């Protein structure tokens, strides 16, 4: 439903980080804040928190977003993909 959040995995192209940010985490954080700050349905500060920040095998982060935010984020420079976080099972 409108405003309902789910978690997403966001792949970022780190070499596009603007020089104004000292490290990629600040860049991610700023991107997420600017996305969520203007969302009228934002409920808590926790919405701006990352679930995980990935640095080794993957560049990017995971976070809770609305479907609209996820779509919007996918259009940002440097964002390569926004994947819904899925549940898997043991084999």
């Amino acid at each position: 439903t409108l405003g309902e959040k789910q978690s997403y995995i966001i792949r970022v192209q780190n070499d596009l980080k603007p020089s104004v940010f000292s490290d990629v985490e600040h860049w991610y954080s700023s991107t997420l804040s600017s996305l969520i700050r203007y969302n009228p349905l934002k409920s808590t500060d926790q919405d701006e928190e990352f679930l995980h920040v990935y640095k080794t095998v993957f560049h990017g982060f995971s976070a809770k977003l609305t479907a609209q935010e996820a779509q919007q984020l996918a259009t940002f420079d440097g964002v390569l993909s926004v994947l819904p976080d899925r549940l898997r099972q043991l084999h």
Partner: protein
Amino acid sequence: TTRSPHFMGLDSASTMSNLVTESDSGSNVVIGVLDTGIWPERPSFHDQGMGPIPSFWKGECTVGENFTKANCNKKIIGARYFTSGYLAKMGSMNSSTDIKSARDTEGHGTHTASTAAGRAVGDASFLGFAKGVAVGIAPKARIAAYKVCWKRGCMDSDILAGFDKAVEDGVNIISISIGGSAVPYNLDPIAIGSFGAMEKGVFISASAGNEGPRSMSVTNVAPWITTVGASTIDRKFPADLVLGNGKRITGSSIYRGDDPLHDINNFQHLPLIYGGNASVGLRNGARHSSSFSSATCMPDSLDKERVRGKIVVCDRGGTPRVSKGEIVKDAGGVGVVVANIFPMGEGLVADAHLIPGLGVTESAGNLIRDYINSNANPTATMTFSETQVGVKPAPVVASFSSRGPSAESIFVLKPDVIAPGVNILAAWPDGVAPTELSSDQRRTQFNIASGTSMSCPHVSGLAALLKGAHPYWSPAMIRSALMTTAYTQDQQGNPLLDETSYNISTTMDMGAGHVDPEKAVDPGLVYDITADDYLNFLCASNYSGRDIKQITKRSGKCRGKHDHKPWNLNYPAISVAIYTTQLQEPAIVQVTRTVTHVGETPSTYTVSVTNPKGVNVTVTPSSMNFREKGEKQSYVVRIKAEKKAVTSLNSVIEVGKLSWSNGKQHVVSPLVVVW
């Protein structure tokens, strides 16, 4: 595990296996297990006699609920847990079932970790079944546990975090017995995480899935992952259902109880009923159990009046097998028979039922239902036997093991190999019942489980041994050694069978075949693959630049009008497609492969080919002479299709093989042609 190391030739009685010796049992190798955590107090994880932790290791033991740094040692050298994705999905954790630490409250992670790298523990068994010395495949390899799965499953975001941290910590092998549905590589976080790990030299062993015997059901199919299917070992847990007409049906069970039914001396026949004939009627004027739910013995589906005091036959499906016994018990039944239904066929796994119970095959299930339907007063009894070893034929491809071809690319053979995954005994935590049912009050140090989850850590351990013996081998070289030395015939020289039907198994069932550790340590030649090779494969497979960037962190540019073909990925198997509907003249597909000589001495290899039906295969050159270790040489395979009329719109898969031999070693590649 008991028996499977012996079955794989790793505990040769007279001489210690070459692989185990050369690798020092994997002592300098770290296996990262992405799973449900670990129960560190189990004797399988003691560190007596182990050397110092490898200097490259950067991981840590994260403190959490009921888990301190003291829970790590020189065996368990890392333990982390990842909750954020799970909490975001579920809202909160049930503190009675999940605890926030790497401690395993499910059992699965303890089982897989000890299978891959458990230390030797004498007199191990599950309620007396599968007795022996339990030991992992690489008993000195170090374990790092990354808990990414919880009571209700495993979130992609946590799995990816596990990959990220494991590689940062310095693991050499990642063992992941988790899956979902097959999706394009760029949409699959396990494939994406694995690519990043592979780039850093980490070998990824993943379970193929338990959706067999359905075709195209294999998962974790990215070509940089080693995908492991499941097979049986030469051990069974027989139990018989004896019908009132004297017919004896042998099934499988690890039921152990003091119920009179268990005692063969108190052999007594009891009424037998099919669950589908015992559905509850209209209850309170509202509820009615469908025949499907009662046939599969779903909760509240059985009529207590009809079931009381009887042995109930339940079809498989819908609920866990062991829970069917619980449902029968709650309805007043005294025994349970869990019968396979189509397409499960003749595959059997042994379950630790709470009431006298056993599993039977699909054909036996049909026979039992026929007996019930044709008798006014059907009866039966059960007898339970001890563990049987030396069973033939073995190995047999497990009925449940997911099958190829890969839905993502027919040019990459999947699964890659099969390994033991049926009725595997391994360590089990305190506080978790062997059936995982809340009503099961039993607690055991070991448990017997089945699944590709169990076969995957066998290969993880094996990869650790190979990495220990050959520290500079890449992940692709390790997989190549496993695949090209795998066997497709049992010790009697008969083709490996498919448990579903006991017909001959196919390459789509077992990949290159069953792993053979002693041969894999000295494969002669290997097929290496670099990260750039995988990029070329993705380009050739029509992945866009953006798709490729999503997987690889690299530029994703496919050079100009590239001339790469997806079948030219330097895979240890060859798989091509020939579309006969467009075939005017005989079609030719040309395949290139490059081998690396990994033997210690100069050697000459000559090729032999078994043609797939309907094609003619030639190899140029037909002989290769290697002077020194590390030398690479390429060859070209021309696969020429015979001109023939199209008889079916369905694709047909024909399989042959290509083998390079120097007289001592045989480097075998399956050769698959899809028409």
